[in-house]
């Protein structure tokens, strides 16, 4: 199964489970959870089912394309089921079958792992799913988002696509994964990995980035005052990504770190609050479907 076939198999499987199959959100982010399709939609009483691939950037994990397991940008497959159905674990195991992973032939375990994203003011309880000892999915029941209790709890499934592909294709190096026949993950991304590593660790203009952070933060606040949620949230994501580059570059001391995280969290909370109000004012249109 090529990388592309893995994605297609998951798309087909979750489409059959009545999920919207969405496209990746076009602002840089560190995880699928940060997409507004998850962050905002997990708030409030309205049901929601969606699945999408999310390219996720983590500057601190960049390794110039030289580490077989760590990369600047990896791909998550994100599924949100809100409310979480009673058979959600079975649905998940069904998706592994769709990838040709027969639970009978393996040892699949749900091992406690509680998820927390301080910059988003979000946390949940759940597991990391182990396939013969390897973590392949993060499974979380959201409890809080943006500092607000989740009125209707979602189940979030986050598949690590590279891990799964390495397992299925029996590769020891992420860059050896076949994306499609004849084209490897390395062909596709190795140069990008090197360039982004070089930029994040060596070339990023920290003075400029600090000023970006301040500007993005100010703009997010200004826009939220105007009652526009999505444009404001885009700037929250930009703040978060800028912070991640500065952090990778070693420009943020441990003391300052807490301060930056709480600044992003404050913005996230403001956006979450505004979104909840907006949906209420709209009379929760998705409840009527």
């Amino acid at each position: 199964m090529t990388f592309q076939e893995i994605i297609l198999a998951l798309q087909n499987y979750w489409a059959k489970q009545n999920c919207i199959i969405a496209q990746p959100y076009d602002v840089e982010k560190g995880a699928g959870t940060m997409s507004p399709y998850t962050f905002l939609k997990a708030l409030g009483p309205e049901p929601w089912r969606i699945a999408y691939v999310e390219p996720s950037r983590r500057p601190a994990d960049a390794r110039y394309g030289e580490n077989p397991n760590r990369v600047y940008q990896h791909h998550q497959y994100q599924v949100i089921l809100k409310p979480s159905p009673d058979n959600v674990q079975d649905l998940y195991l069904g998706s592994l079958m769709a990838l040709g992973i027969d639970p009978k032939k393996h040892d699949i375990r749900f091992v406690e792992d509680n998820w927390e994203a301080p910059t988003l003011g979000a946390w949940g309880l759940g597991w990391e799913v182990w396939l013969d000892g390897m973590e392949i999915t993060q499974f979380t029941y959201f409890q809080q988002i943006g500092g607000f209790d989740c009125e209707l709890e979602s189940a979030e499934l986050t598949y690590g696509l590279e891990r799964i592909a390495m397992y299925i294709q029996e590769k020891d190096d992420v860059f050896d994964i076949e994306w499609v026949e004849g084209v490897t993950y390395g062909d596709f991304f190795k140069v990008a990995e090197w360039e982004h590593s070089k930029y994040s660790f060596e070339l990023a203009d920290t003075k400029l980035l600090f000023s970006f952070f301040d500007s993005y933060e100010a703009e997010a606040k200004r826009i939220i005052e105007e009652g526009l949620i999505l444009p404001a949230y885009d700037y929250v994501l930009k703040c978060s990504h800028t912070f991640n580059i500065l952090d990778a570059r070693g420009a943020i001391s441990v003391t300052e770190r807490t301060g930056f995280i709480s600044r992003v969290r404050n913005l996230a909370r403001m956006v979450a609050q505004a979104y909840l109000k907006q949906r209420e004012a709209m009379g929760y249109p998705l409840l009527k479907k």
Partner: protein
Amino acid sequence: MAKDLVFEIGTEEIPAKFMSRTLEQLKEIAAKALIENRIGYKSLDTYGTPRRLVLYVKDMAEKQEDLETEVKGPSKKAAYDSDNNPTKALLGFVKGNGLDFKDIYIKELSGAEYIYGRKHLKGMDTKEVLKRLLPDILTSINFPKSMKWGNKSFRFARPVRWLVPIFGDELVEFDKDGITCSKYTKGHRVLSEGDIEINNASEYFDKLRKAYVIVDQNERREIIRRQCEEISKQQNGNIIHDDELLEEIVYLVEYPTALLGSFEVDYLKLPKEVIITPMKEHQRYFPIEDARGNLMNKFIAIRNGDNSYIDIVRQGNEKVLRARLADAKFFYEEDKKVSLDQCVEKLKHVVFQETLGTIYDKTVNIMNNSNYLAEELGLDESQKNMLNRAAYLSKADLVTNMVKEFDELQGIMGREYALVQGEKPEVAKAIEEHYMPRNAGDDMPSSLLGAIVGIADRIDTITGCFSIGIQPTGSQDPYALRRQAISIINTILDKKIHIDIKKLAEKAITPFVEKKINKEEPSKVIDDIIEFFKHRLKNVLLDKNYEYDVIDSVLNVGLTDIEDAVLRVKELSKWKNQEDFLAIASSFNRVSNLASKAETAEIDSNLLSEPTEKELYDSYMNVRNIFNEAMERKDYNNALKALMIMKKPIDNFFDNTMVMVEDQSIRRNRLAMLKNIEDMMMRFADLSLIVVNK
């Protein structure tokens, strides 16, 4: 007729580390509920797997026991009219409580007579009572962390998905927030297909066993033990036992099967802990060592399932471990390229605590505190040099790749990298051991140098935190200061070293006072720290079964030298068990009572007139010398013996001499003598606190 009850709470995977406590709790809650509801039974046990909590009650009564209670009615006056006929009030009472006139009687209550009735409550069918009790039991279970899901009114560690309550051969039917009860449970997640019907409580365990679920955790534990034993024997090795790991694995699997995996021999060149940590902490494997105690390139993993396709599972697990070991090897090689001295420089950029400064600042404090202790303990030059070096390098490994990845390896990597760069073995050992004891059951540092650096590090944290006002309150103790103080105490007691904790704290607080970050006067902070240590020491001694009055009597006279205080507690405890000691304590008690009235401590021997007064004075002068000399030698047995000599003179004095006489100067002189005697005693302990009436 008695019947068995099985109550299975079917869940999604509950965190393994919650399970044993949860099963105990379920047992307590259920036993209490059954007693309160007068339902008899022969035995009650709880069982659990990742996906189920099970209550099993053997030989449970089919009915509640009847209950006879007494109900109070109107006063006799109000109950009968002048013709001695029942009033409306009495009729209402009898009817309202479903009583008969033969059930009522008159009883006196605080001087007045009242009507009472004896009420018989027929026991209900157990099955009916269970419909109410079981949902209550379900929702009374608490977890360290719990969640909300699907609009349920109660929280649980993970979602509850099914309930199987069977009493004898009957289903106990109830509905809790939409979770319904049925006779159908689920077997092993992949090895068993379809639902498993439970028609009788007694067939529960067997039916689940056939569905690849070993419900009894003790049985699973034994299976894992036995299989590990067999496999490791075949390899001519032994697993490295770890009860905590075993307990966790027991609750990660419903049907355990052990499998042997291996990795490239080359990785054995890494330090042992570097291989063991990812195996145990991350993958939950048991490492194996050979007969001579050397780590082998083998491990045992416990699969949740049977033997089928076990090679695929083995290969998968080996692949994961190989990736982790490759990472560890990479970190190890990278770290070795940087000297620990360079690492110390990097500590300037790592914050320990916002106000207190960086880890580098802390390192400097640890060095100063260590040097002070070296002087106090009279270390020789070569020891001092090694201590200084160990203190300087103590925190260097915090910025290595390996410790960033596996923080439990702090200290251990410091030792390894120190040896690699040619430090003395004593220095390397002290770096590792300064973290010991890490927790209550951990080993003590074996070396004196490790012990000293450990004390120097912890006293720095304690004085620093107290200076800026973050001392522990209630359950809040973010820097684990209580544990740190207890570690200091236990290290001192283990090494039998004499350290004046007050002077040490005064030394340790200086950098914070110099930086002017202390919130209170330094003397106040030190007093608080000494009080804090007293409490911890008291707890440590109570745990060692010393009596609280003996501990109080020693600690109440002040705390300076911890080892010394403990020696006095030990000595006093021996004496306290002798019969005549209590009489002596009461003699000193009489001294203390009056000594508090003394205005001066100066005795004028010319004013001594009464014979028993002179006798006491002579005895005091004599005993004082012996006592002081014994105290000097820390010979507490003889110091106490000396005090005992004074019992008779003290008793004679009180029996024959009046202290509070009219004559001011004589009264003052007698009080002064008592004050002197008390002061002497107080250097040992406040004997007046010894509880005599025991």
